[in-house]
Protein backbone atom coordinates (compact mmCIF):
# COMPACT_ATOMS: atom_id res chain seq x y z
CA UNK A 1 0.00 0.00 0.00
CA UNK A 2 1.35 3.44 -0.95
CA UNK A 3 2.02 5.55 2.11
CA UNK A 4 0.38 8.92 2.61
CA UNK A 5 2.21 12.24 2.39
CA UNK A 6 3.42 13.21 5.85
CA UNK A 7 2.87 16.62 7.45
CA UNK A 8 4.56 17.74 10.64
CA UNK A 9 2.25 17.83 13.68
CA UNK A 10 1.18 21.37 14.54
CA UNK A 11 -0.80 22.69 17.49
CA UNK A 12 -1.69 26.37 17.68
CA UNK A 13 -3.30 28.28 20.48
CA UNK A 14 -6.56 29.94 19.40
CA UNK A 15 -7.01 33.51 20.51
CA UNK A 16 -10.57 34.73 20.47
CA UNK A 17 -11.20 38.33 19.44
CA UNK A 18 -8.50 40.70 18.26
CA UNK A 19 -5.59 39.31 16.30
CA UNK A 20 -2.41 39.16 18.37
CA UNK A 21 0.92 40.66 17.40
CA UNK A 22 1.69 37.70 15.19
CA UNK A 23 -1.22 38.56 12.93
CA UNK A 24 -3.63 35.93 11.68
CA UNK A 25 -4.98 34.95 8.37
CA UNK A 26 -2.25 36.33 6.17
CA UNK A 27 -1.28 33.66 3.71
CA UNK A 28 2.40 33.53 2.96
CA UNK A 29 3.31 33.06 -0.69
CA UNK A 30 6.60 31.34 -1.36
CA UNK A 31 9.14 32.94 -3.71
CA UNK A 32 11.03 30.18 -5.49
CA UNK A 33 12.80 32.32 -8.06
CA UNK A 34 13.74 35.86 -8.90
CA UNK A 35 13.22 36.83 -12.54
CA UNK A 36 13.09 33.14 -13.49
CA UNK A 37 16.32 32.19 -11.75
CA UNK A 38 15.84 29.72 -8.90
CA UNK A 39 16.84 30.98 -5.46
CA UNK A 40 18.46 27.58 -4.97
CA UNK A 41 20.70 28.19 -8.00
CA UNK A 42 21.66 31.65 -6.79
CA UNK A 43 22.73 30.30 -3.42
CA UNK A 44 24.58 27.28 -4.73
CA UNK A 45 26.48 29.40 -7.24
CA UNK A 46 27.25 32.47 -5.13
CA UNK A 47 26.94 31.31 -1.50
CA UNK A 48 24.51 32.18 1.27
CA UNK A 49 23.49 34.77 2.26
CA UNK A 50 23.36 36.76 -0.96
CA UNK A 51 22.13 40.16 -2.09
CA UNK A 52 20.39 40.18 -5.47
CA UNK A 53 19.54 43.35 -7.38
CA UNK A 54 17.26 43.58 -10.41
CA UNK A 55 18.38 46.03 -13.08
CA UNK A 56 14.94 45.81 -14.66
CA UNK A 57 13.15 46.88 -11.48
CA UNK A 58 15.56 49.79 -11.00
CA UNK A 59 15.01 51.07 -14.54
CA UNK A 60 11.25 50.50 -14.49
CA UNK A 61 10.89 52.26 -11.14
CA UNK A 62 13.04 55.19 -12.23
CA UNK A 63 11.07 55.62 -15.45
CA UNK A 64 7.78 55.45 -13.59
CA UNK A 65 8.94 58.16 -11.16
CA UNK A 66 10.36 60.35 -13.92
CA UNK A 67 7.23 60.17 -16.01
CA UNK A 68 5.01 60.93 -13.01
CA UNK A 69 6.84 64.27 -12.73
CA UNK A 70 7.69 65.01 -16.37
CA UNK A 71 4.12 64.71 -17.53
CA UNK A 72 3.15 67.42 -15.04
CA UNK A 73 6.24 69.64 -15.00
CA UNK A 74 8.80 69.29 -17.77
CA UNK A 75 11.84 70.73 -15.98
CA UNK A 76 12.69 67.82 -13.70
CA UNK A 77 16.10 66.44 -12.80
CA UNK A 78 16.72 63.48 -10.49
CA UNK A 79 20.03 63.20 -8.63
CA UNK A 80 20.83 59.74 -7.31
CA UNK A 81 21.21 59.80 -3.54
CA UNK A 82 24.49 57.90 -3.17
CA UNK A 83 24.03 57.04 0.49
CA UNK A 84 20.97 54.96 -0.33
CA UNK A 85 23.01 52.52 -2.40
CA UNK A 86 26.44 53.41 -3.71
CA UNK A 87 27.44 50.17 -5.33
CA UNK A 88 29.07 51.48 -8.49
CA UNK A 89 26.96 49.31 -10.81
CA UNK A 90 23.77 50.59 -9.19
CA UNK A 91 24.90 54.24 -9.45
CA UNK A 92 25.81 53.72 -13.10
CA UNK A 93 22.34 52.40 -13.91
CA UNK A 94 20.84 55.58 -12.49
CA UNK A 95 23.39 57.73 -14.33
CA UNK A 96 22.65 55.91 -17.60
CA UNK A 97 19.01 56.77 -17.00
CA UNK A 98 20.02 60.43 -16.77
CA UNK A 99 20.25 60.89 -13.02
CA UNK A 100 22.87 63.24 -11.58
CA UNK A 101 24.65 62.40 -8.32
CA UNK A 102 23.72 63.62 -4.83
CA UNK A 103 26.55 63.07 -2.35
CA UNK A 104 27.09 63.95 1.30
CA UNK A 105 30.81 63.34 1.87
CA UNK A 106 34.20 63.48 0.23
CA UNK A 107 34.07 59.69 -0.04
CA UNK A 108 30.79 59.76 -1.99
CA UNK A 109 32.03 62.70 -4.07
CA UNK A 110 35.07 60.69 -5.14
CA UNK A 111 32.84 57.75 -6.00
CA UNK A 112 30.63 59.92 -8.20
CA UNK A 113 33.64 61.35 -10.06
CA UNK A 114 35.07 57.83 -10.51
CA UNK A 115 31.69 56.72 -11.86
CA UNK A 116 32.08 59.31 -14.61
CA UNK A 117 29.71 61.98 -13.32
CA UNK A 118 30.90 65.46 -14.41
CA UNK A 119 31.62 67.67 -11.40
CA UNK A 120 28.96 70.12 -12.58
CA UNK A 121 26.34 67.39 -12.20
CA UNK A 122 27.13 66.58 -8.59
CA UNK A 123 25.03 68.01 -5.78
CA UNK A 124 27.11 68.18 -2.62
CA UNK A 125 24.96 68.03 0.53
CA UNK A 126 25.52 67.42 4.20
CA UNK A 127 27.17 69.02 7.22
CA UNK A 128 30.58 67.36 6.72
CA UNK A 129 32.53 69.02 3.91
CA UNK A 130 36.23 69.55 4.58
CA UNK A 131 38.08 72.57 3.19
CA UNK A 132 39.67 70.28 0.58
CA UNK A 133 36.22 68.92 -0.33
CA UNK A 134 34.91 72.46 -0.79
CA UNK A 135 37.90 73.55 -2.86
CA UNK A 136 37.53 70.59 -5.20
CA UNK A 137 33.77 71.11 -5.50
CA UNK A 138 34.22 74.83 -6.33
CA UNK A 139 36.88 74.05 -8.92
CA UNK A 140 34.67 71.39 -10.51
CA UNK A 141 31.62 73.65 -10.59
CA UNK A 142 29.59 71.29 -8.39
CA UNK A 143 26.43 72.50 -6.69
CA UNK A 144 27.31 73.04 -3.05
CA UNK A 145 24.31 72.97 -0.75
CA UNK A 146 25.36 74.92 2.31
CA UNK A 147 24.30 73.42 5.61
CA UNK A 148 25.41 76.00 8.20
CA UNK A 149 27.10 79.39 8.63
CA UNK A 150 30.55 77.92 9.34
CA UNK A 151 30.46 76.30 5.92
CA UNK A 152 29.29 79.55 4.35
CA UNK A 153 32.31 81.36 5.83
CA UNK A 154 34.63 78.56 4.66
CA UNK A 155 33.39 79.00 1.11
CA UNK A 156 33.81 82.78 1.32
CA UNK A 157 37.46 82.13 2.22
CA UNK A 158 38.21 79.36 -0.23
CA UNK A 159 36.43 80.54 -3.37
CA UNK A 160 38.66 83.58 -4.08
CA UNK A 161 41.73 81.32 -3.97
CA UNK A 162 40.33 79.08 -6.69
CA UNK A 163 39.63 81.93 -9.07
CA UNK A 164 36.15 80.50 -9.58
CA UNK A 165 32.73 81.48 -8.40
CA UNK A 166 31.26 78.89 -6.04
CA UNK A 167 27.89 77.61 -7.23
CA UNK A 168 25.78 77.31 -4.13
CA UNK A 169 22.33 76.70 -2.75
CA UNK A 170 21.30 76.70 0.88
CA UNK A 171 19.56 73.88 2.62
CA UNK A 172 16.40 75.15 4.26
CA UNK A 173 14.62 73.39 7.10
CA UNK A 174 11.03 74.21 7.87
CA UNK A 175 7.81 73.20 9.48
CA UNK A 176 6.10 71.21 6.73
CA UNK A 177 3.31 70.11 9.04
CA UNK A 178 4.85 66.72 9.79
CA UNK A 179 6.59 65.14 12.71
CA UNK A 180 9.52 64.93 13.29
CA UNK A 181 10.60 68.36 12.12
CA UNK A 182 14.20 67.97 10.91
CA UNK A 183 15.76 71.19 12.18
CA UNK A 184 19.34 70.03 12.55
CA UNK A 185 20.25 70.40 8.87
CA UNK A 186 20.33 73.68 7.02
CA UNK A 187 18.93 77.10 7.84
CA UNK A 188 15.51 77.55 9.35
CA UNK A 189 12.76 79.14 7.28
CA UNK A 190 10.35 80.31 9.95
CA UNK A 191 12.83 82.13 12.19
CA UNK A 192 14.41 84.02 9.31
CA UNK A 193 17.77 82.24 9.39
CA UNK A 194 17.44 81.10 5.77
CA UNK A 195 16.72 84.66 4.62
CA UNK A 196 19.75 85.91 6.59
CA UNK A 197 21.98 83.34 4.85
CA UNK A 198 20.60 84.36 1.45
CA UNK A 199 21.39 88.00 2.24
CA UNK A 200 24.99 87.08 2.99
CA UNK A 201 25.38 85.11 -0.24
CA UNK A 202 23.62 87.36 -2.74
CA UNK A 203 25.97 90.39 -2.47
CA UNK A 204 29.08 88.17 -2.36
CA UNK A 205 30.92 88.17 -5.67
CA UNK A 206 32.66 84.84 -5.04
CA UNK A 207 29.41 82.93 -4.77
CA UNK A 208 26.44 82.45 -7.01
CA UNK A 209 23.19 81.36 -5.40
CA UNK A 210 21.68 79.03 -7.95
CA UNK A 211 18.99 77.21 -6.06
CA UNK A 212 17.33 76.33 -2.78
CA UNK A 213 17.26 72.91 -1.19
CA UNK A 214 15.23 71.13 1.44
CA UNK A 215 14.93 67.54 2.61
CA UNK A 216 12.00 67.44 4.97
CA UNK A 217 12.59 63.91 6.22
CA UNK A 218 12.39 60.32 5.11
CA UNK A 219 9.48 57.92 4.56
CA UNK A 220 7.06 60.85 4.30
CA UNK A 221 3.55 59.44 4.05
CA UNK A 222 1.82 62.76 3.38
CA UNK A 223 2.37 64.31 -0.07
CA UNK A 224 0.88 67.59 1.18
CA UNK A 225 4.01 68.09 3.31
CA UNK A 226 5.90 68.54 0.03
CA UNK A 227 3.35 71.07 -1.15
CA UNK A 228 4.04 73.10 2.00
CA UNK A 229 7.78 72.78 1.42
CA UNK A 230 7.44 73.95 -2.20
CA UNK A 231 5.38 76.96 -1.19
CA UNK A 232 7.96 78.02 1.39
CA UNK A 233 10.92 77.64 -0.99
CA UNK A 234 8.93 79.44 -3.71
CA UNK A 235 8.22 82.30 -1.29
CA UNK A 236 11.97 82.69 -0.75
CA UNK A 237 12.58 82.59 -4.50
CA UNK A 238 10.02 85.33 -5.06
CA UNK A 239 11.54 87.43 -2.28
CA UNK A 240 14.97 87.07 -3.91
CA UNK A 241 13.49 88.25 -7.21
CA UNK A 242 11.93 91.28 -5.54
CA UNK A 243 15.01 92.30 -3.60
CA UNK A 244 17.81 91.35 -6.03
CA UNK A 245 15.96 91.08 -9.35
CA UNK A 246 17.44 87.63 -9.71
CA UNK A 247 15.87 84.36 -10.80
CA UNK A 248 16.91 81.13 -9.08
CA UNK A 249 17.55 78.23 -11.44
CA UNK A 250 16.28 75.37 -9.32
CA UNK A 251 14.39 74.19 -6.25
CA UNK A 252 15.57 70.87 -4.81
CA UNK A 253 12.94 69.01 -2.82
CA UNK A 254 15.33 66.33 -1.53
CA UNK A 255 14.27 62.74 -0.98
CA UNK A 256 11.85 61.16 1.42
CA UNK A 257 9.22 59.37 -0.67
CA UNK A 258 8.06 56.25 1.19
CA UNK A 259 8.87 52.80 -0.17
CA UNK A 260 6.39 49.96 0.04
CA UNK A 261 8.02 48.47 3.12
CA UNK A 262 5.97 48.30 6.31
CA UNK A 263 7.22 50.48 9.15
CA UNK A 264 7.48 48.83 12.56
CA UNK A 265 4.30 49.32 14.52
CA UNK A 266 2.25 50.20 11.41
CA UNK A 267 -1.21 48.71 11.41
CA UNK A 268 -1.47 48.15 7.67
CA UNK A 269 1.19 46.94 5.24
CA UNK A 270 3.22 49.66 3.49
CA UNK A 271 2.21 48.28 0.10
CA UNK A 272 -1.39 49.33 0.92
CA UNK A 273 -0.64 52.70 2.48
CA UNK A 274 2.36 54.27 0.77
CA UNK A 275 1.55 57.10 -1.69
CA UNK A 276 2.40 56.57 -5.36
CA UNK A 277 4.88 58.62 -7.38
CA UNK A 278 1.83 60.22 -8.99
CA UNK A 279 0.54 61.33 -5.57
CA UNK A 280 3.85 63.00 -4.70
CA UNK A 281 4.28 64.43 -8.20
CA UNK A 282 0.82 65.95 -8.16
CA UNK A 283 1.33 67.61 -4.76
CA UNK A 284 4.74 69.02 -5.69
CA UNK A 285 4.03 70.18 -9.23
CA UNK A 286 0.64 71.67 -8.34
CA UNK A 287 2.34 73.69 -5.62
CA UNK A 288 5.01 74.85 -8.09
CA UNK A 289 2.52 75.76 -10.79
CA UNK A 290 0.38 77.63 -8.28
CA UNK A 291 3.28 79.56 -6.76
CA UNK A 292 4.03 83.22 -7.45
CA UNK A 293 7.22 82.42 -9.35
CA UNK A 294 7.13 84.10 -12.79
CA UNK A 295 5.83 81.78 -15.45
CA UNK A 296 8.78 82.18 -17.84
CA UNK A 297 11.30 81.69 -15.03
CA UNK A 298 10.03 78.46 -13.55
CA UNK A 299 12.93 76.72 -11.80
CA UNK A 300 14.14 73.20 -12.53
CA UNK A 301 12.78 70.78 -9.97
CA UNK A 302 15.53 68.61 -8.50
CA UNK A 303 14.67 65.42 -6.66
CA UNK A 304 17.02 63.30 -4.58
CA UNK A 305 14.71 60.35 -4.18
CA UNK A 306 16.48 57.40 -2.55
CA UNK A 307 14.60 54.52 -0.99
CA UNK A 308 11.51 54.71 -3.18
CA UNK A 309 13.67 54.20 -6.28
CA UNK A 310 15.72 51.23 -5.11
CA UNK A 311 14.04 49.35 -2.26
CA UNK A 312 11.94 47.10 -4.51
CA UNK A 313 14.91 46.15 -6.68
CA UNK A 314 16.83 44.43 -3.86
CA UNK A 315 16.39 40.95 -2.41
CA UNK A 316 18.32 39.25 0.35
CA UNK A 317 18.49 35.45 0.10
CA UNK A 318 19.48 33.22 2.98
CA UNK A 319 19.35 29.82 4.60
CA UNK A 320 17.81 28.39 7.76
CA UNK A 321 20.47 27.39 10.30
CA UNK A 322 18.25 25.92 13.03
CA UNK A 323 14.89 25.76 14.76
CA UNK A 324 14.59 26.25 18.49
CA UNK A 325 11.83 26.58 21.04
CA UNK A 326 11.87 29.61 23.30
CA UNK A 327 10.90 29.24 26.95
CA UNK A 328 7.29 30.20 26.27
CA UNK A 329 7.02 27.55 23.56
CA UNK A 330 7.30 29.99 20.68
CA UNK A 331 9.19 28.74 17.67
CA UNK A 332 12.39 30.52 16.87
CA UNK A 333 14.00 30.22 13.51
CA UNK A 334 17.67 31.07 13.13
CA UNK A 335 18.78 32.17 9.67
CA UNK A 336 22.16 33.18 8.28
CA UNK A 337 21.02 36.78 7.71
CA UNK A 338 21.75 39.02 10.67
CA UNK A 339 20.84 42.63 11.39
CA UNK A 340 24.37 43.52 10.26
CA UNK A 341 23.27 42.51 6.74
CA UNK A 342 19.82 43.98 7.12
CA UNK A 343 20.21 47.26 8.91
CA UNK A 344 16.72 48.32 7.85
CA UNK A 345 15.22 45.60 10.06
CA UNK A 346 15.47 48.22 12.82
CA UNK A 347 12.83 50.29 10.96
CA UNK A 348 10.82 47.82 8.94
CA UNK A 349 8.84 44.63 9.40
CA UNK A 350 10.54 43.14 6.38
CA UNK A 351 8.57 40.69 4.33
CA UNK A 352 10.34 37.35 4.61
CA UNK A 353 9.10 34.23 2.83
CA UNK A 354 10.29 30.68 2.23
CA UNK A 355 11.23 29.43 -1.23
CA UNK A 356 8.76 26.58 -0.94
CA UNK A 357 5.85 25.79 1.30
CA UNK A 358 5.81 22.14 2.24
CA UNK A 359 2.69 22.34 4.35
CA UNK A 360 0.13 25.04 4.93
CA UNK A 361 0.41 25.23 8.73
CA UNK A 362 2.08 28.21 10.29
CA UNK A 363 3.24 28.92 13.84
CA UNK A 364 4.01 32.02 15.88
CA UNK A 365 7.67 32.46 15.07
CA UNK A 366 10.51 34.76 15.96
CA UNK A 367 13.20 34.96 13.29
CA UNK A 368 16.72 35.54 14.53
CA UNK A 369 19.99 36.17 12.72
CA UNK A 370 23.20 34.27 13.50
CA UNK A 371 24.98 36.98 15.49
CA UNK A 372 25.68 36.21 19.11
CA UNK A 373 23.72 39.24 20.21
CA UNK A 374 20.27 39.80 21.61
CA UNK A 375 19.44 42.62 19.21
CA UNK A 376 19.79 40.32 16.23
CA UNK A 377 16.10 39.96 15.43
CA UNK A 378 14.92 39.94 11.82
CA UNK A 379 11.21 39.55 12.71
CA UNK A 380 10.08 39.62 16.34
CA UNK A 381 6.71 38.04 15.66
CA UNK A 382 5.43 36.55 12.46
CA UNK A 383 3.12 33.72 11.48
CA UNK A 384 5.53 31.53 9.59
CA UNK A 385 5.53 28.10 7.96
CA UNK A 386 7.60 25.36 9.59
CA UNK A 387 11.00 25.38 7.97
CA UNK A 388 13.92 23.08 8.50
CA UNK A 389 17.67 23.49 8.62
CA UNK A 390 18.88 24.08 5.08
CA UNK A 391 15.60 25.52 3.79
CA UNK A 392 15.96 28.86 2.03
CA UNK A 393 14.27 32.22 2.54
CA UNK A 394 13.85 35.45 0.59
CA UNK A 395 13.58 38.91 2.13
CA UNK A 396 11.97 41.44 -0.18
CA UNK A 397 12.52 45.17 -0.68
CA UNK A 398 15.95 45.58 0.81
CA UNK A 399 17.61 47.69 -1.90
CA UNK A 400 17.83 50.92 0.10
CA UNK A 401 20.43 51.64 2.79
CA UNK A 402 21.40 48.01 3.49
CA UNK A 403 24.34 47.89 1.10
CA UNK A 404 25.71 51.12 2.55
CA UNK A 405 24.91 50.80 6.26
CA UNK A 406 25.84 47.12 6.51
CA UNK A 407 28.23 46.25 9.27
CA UNK A 408 31.06 43.81 9.07
CA UNK A 409 30.72 41.69 12.20
CA UNK A 410 32.05 38.21 13.04
CA UNK A 411 31.99 37.07 9.43
CA UNK A 412 32.56 38.25 5.87
CA UNK A 413 30.03 40.37 4.08
CA UNK A 414 28.46 38.44 1.20
CA UNK A 415 28.43 38.98 -2.53
CA UNK A 416 26.01 41.23 -4.38
CA UNK A 417 24.69 39.97 -7.70
CA UNK A 418 22.91 41.97 -10.39
CA UNK A 419 20.40 40.42 -12.79
CA UNK A 420 20.71 42.34 -16.04
CA UNK A 421 17.95 43.02 -18.56
CA UNK A 422 18.70 39.76 -20.40
CA UNK A 423 18.45 37.68 -17.24
CA UNK A 424 22.22 37.25 -16.98
CA UNK A 425 23.78 37.50 -13.53
CA UNK A 426 26.88 39.50 -12.65
CA UNK A 427 28.73 39.76 -9.35
CA UNK A 428 28.79 43.53 -8.73
CA UNK A 429 30.49 43.27 -5.37
CA UNK A 430 32.66 40.42 -4.15
CA UNK A 431 32.31 38.90 -0.71
CA UNK A 432 34.97 39.84 1.82
CA UNK A 433 37.71 37.32 2.46
CA UNK A 434 40.30 36.74 5.14
CA UNK A 435 42.80 38.60 2.92
CA UNK A 436 40.59 41.59 2.17
CA UNK A 437 39.55 41.94 5.80
CA UNK A 438 43.11 41.73 7.07
CA UNK A 439 44.59 44.04 4.47
CA UNK A 440 43.95 47.13 6.60
CA UNK A 441 45.23 45.71 9.90
CA UNK A 442 48.76 46.49 10.99
CA UNK A 443 50.71 44.73 13.73
CA UNK A 444 53.44 46.57 15.68
CA UNK A 445 56.77 44.69 15.79
CA UNK A 446 56.54 43.79 19.46
CA UNK A 447 53.25 41.99 18.83
CA UNK A 448 54.40 39.97 15.85
CA UNK A 449 55.56 36.92 17.78
CA UNK A 450 53.31 35.06 20.13
CA UNK A 451 54.01 31.90 22.01
CA UNK A 452 51.30 29.94 23.71
Amino acid at each position, binding site marked *: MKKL*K*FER*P*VINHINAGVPDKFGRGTTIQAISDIEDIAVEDFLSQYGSPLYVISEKIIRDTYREALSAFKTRYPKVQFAWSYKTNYLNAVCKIFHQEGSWAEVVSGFEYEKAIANGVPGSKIIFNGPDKSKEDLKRAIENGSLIHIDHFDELYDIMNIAPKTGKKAKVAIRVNMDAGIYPHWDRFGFNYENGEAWTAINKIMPNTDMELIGLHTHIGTYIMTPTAYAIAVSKLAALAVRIKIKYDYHLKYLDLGGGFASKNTLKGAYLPGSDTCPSFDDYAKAITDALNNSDIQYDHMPTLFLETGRALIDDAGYLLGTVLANKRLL*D*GRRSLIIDIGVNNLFTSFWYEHQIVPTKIK*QRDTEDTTIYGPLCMNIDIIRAAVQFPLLEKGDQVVIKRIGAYNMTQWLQFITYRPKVVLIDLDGKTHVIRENETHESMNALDKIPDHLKEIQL
Partner: protein
Amino acid sequence: MKLKKNIAVSENGFLFDPHSGESYSLNKTAQLIVKLISEGKTEVEIMNSIMKKYDVESSALQRYLDDFIMMLHQMNLLEKEDN
Protein backbone atom coordinates in the same frame (compact mmCIF):
# COMPACT_ATOMS: atom_id res chain seq x y z
CA MET B 1 2.62 10.09 28.80
CA LYS B 2 -0.96 10.90 29.60
CA LEU B 3 -3.39 13.50 28.40
CA LYS B 4 -5.01 15.55 31.16
CA LYS B 5 -8.51 14.48 32.13
CA ASN B 6 -11.54 15.74 30.22
CA ILE B 7 -9.60 17.12 27.31
CA ALA B 8 -11.83 16.96 24.27
CA VAL B 9 -10.77 16.87 20.62
CA SER B 10 -13.42 17.49 17.99
CA GLU B 11 -13.60 15.79 14.60
CA ASN B 12 -12.28 18.84 12.79
CA GLY B 13 -9.24 19.29 14.98
CA PHE B 14 -10.23 21.65 17.76
CA LEU B 15 -8.97 20.81 21.22
CA PHE B 16 -10.64 22.28 24.31
CA ASP B 17 -8.95 22.29 27.70
CA PRO B 18 -11.63 22.64 30.43
CA HIS B 19 -8.97 23.26 33.11
CA SER B 20 -7.73 26.47 31.55
CA GLY B 21 -10.62 27.29 29.21
CA GLU B 22 -8.16 27.54 26.30
CA SER B 23 -8.73 26.15 22.82
CA TYR B 24 -6.23 24.95 20.28
CA SER B 25 -6.26 23.98 16.63
CA LEU B 26 -4.53 20.80 15.48
CA ASN B 27 -3.62 19.64 12.01
CA LYS B 28 -4.31 16.02 10.93
CA THR B 29 -0.99 14.61 12.15
CA ALA B 30 -1.33 16.35 15.49
CA GLN B 31 -4.88 14.98 15.86
CA LEU B 32 -3.64 11.47 15.21
CA ILE B 33 -0.86 11.77 17.77
CA VAL B 34 -3.21 13.15 20.43
CA LYS B 35 -5.61 10.29 19.71
CA LEU B 36 -2.82 7.73 20.11
CA ILE B 37 -1.70 9.36 23.36
CA SER B 38 -5.25 9.24 24.68
CA GLU B 39 -5.37 5.53 23.85
CA GLY B 40 -2.38 5.12 26.16
CA LYS B 41 0.17 4.36 23.41
CA THR B 42 3.87 4.76 24.16
CA GLU B 43 6.14 6.96 22.10
CA VAL B 44 7.57 3.98 20.25
CA GLU B 45 4.11 2.69 19.41
CA ILE B 46 3.09 6.15 18.19
CA MET B 47 6.15 6.32 15.97
CA ASN B 48 5.48 2.88 14.53
CA SER B 49 1.86 3.49 13.78
CA ILE B 50 2.62 6.81 12.05
CA MET B 51 5.44 5.35 9.98
CA LYS B 52 3.19 2.50 8.87
CA LYS B 53 0.70 4.95 7.46
CA TYR B 54 2.84 7.91 6.32
CA ASP B 55 5.92 8.41 4.22
CA VAL B 56 8.38 9.73 6.82
CA GLU B 57 11.81 8.72 8.07
CA SER B 58 12.14 7.73 11.69
CA SER B 59 14.88 10.26 12.53
CA ALA B 60 12.82 13.13 11.17
CA LEU B 61 9.66 11.86 12.85
CA GLN B 62 11.49 11.56 16.16
CA ARG B 63 12.45 15.23 15.94
CA TYR B 64 8.94 16.39 15.10
CA LEU B 65 7.41 14.20 17.80
CA ASP B 66 9.84 15.44 20.48
CA ASP B 67 9.02 19.01 19.50
CA PHE B 68 5.28 18.32 19.51
CA ILE B 69 5.30 16.60 22.90
CA MET B 70 7.29 19.51 24.28
CA MET B 71 4.57 21.83 23.01
CA LEU B 72 1.87 19.72 24.70
CA HIS B 73 3.79 20.03 27.97
CA GLN B 74 4.27 23.71 27.39
CA MET B 75 0.54 24.14 26.86
CA ASN B 76 -0.11 22.14 30.01
CA LEU B 77 -2.11 19.47 28.20
CA LEU B 78 -0.19 16.47 29.57
CA GLU B 79 -0.13 15.10 33.12
CA LYS B 80 3.14 15.87 34.86
CA GLU B 81 5.28 12.75 35.06
CA ASP B 82 7.81 12.18 37.82
CA ASN B 83 10.70 10.27 36.42
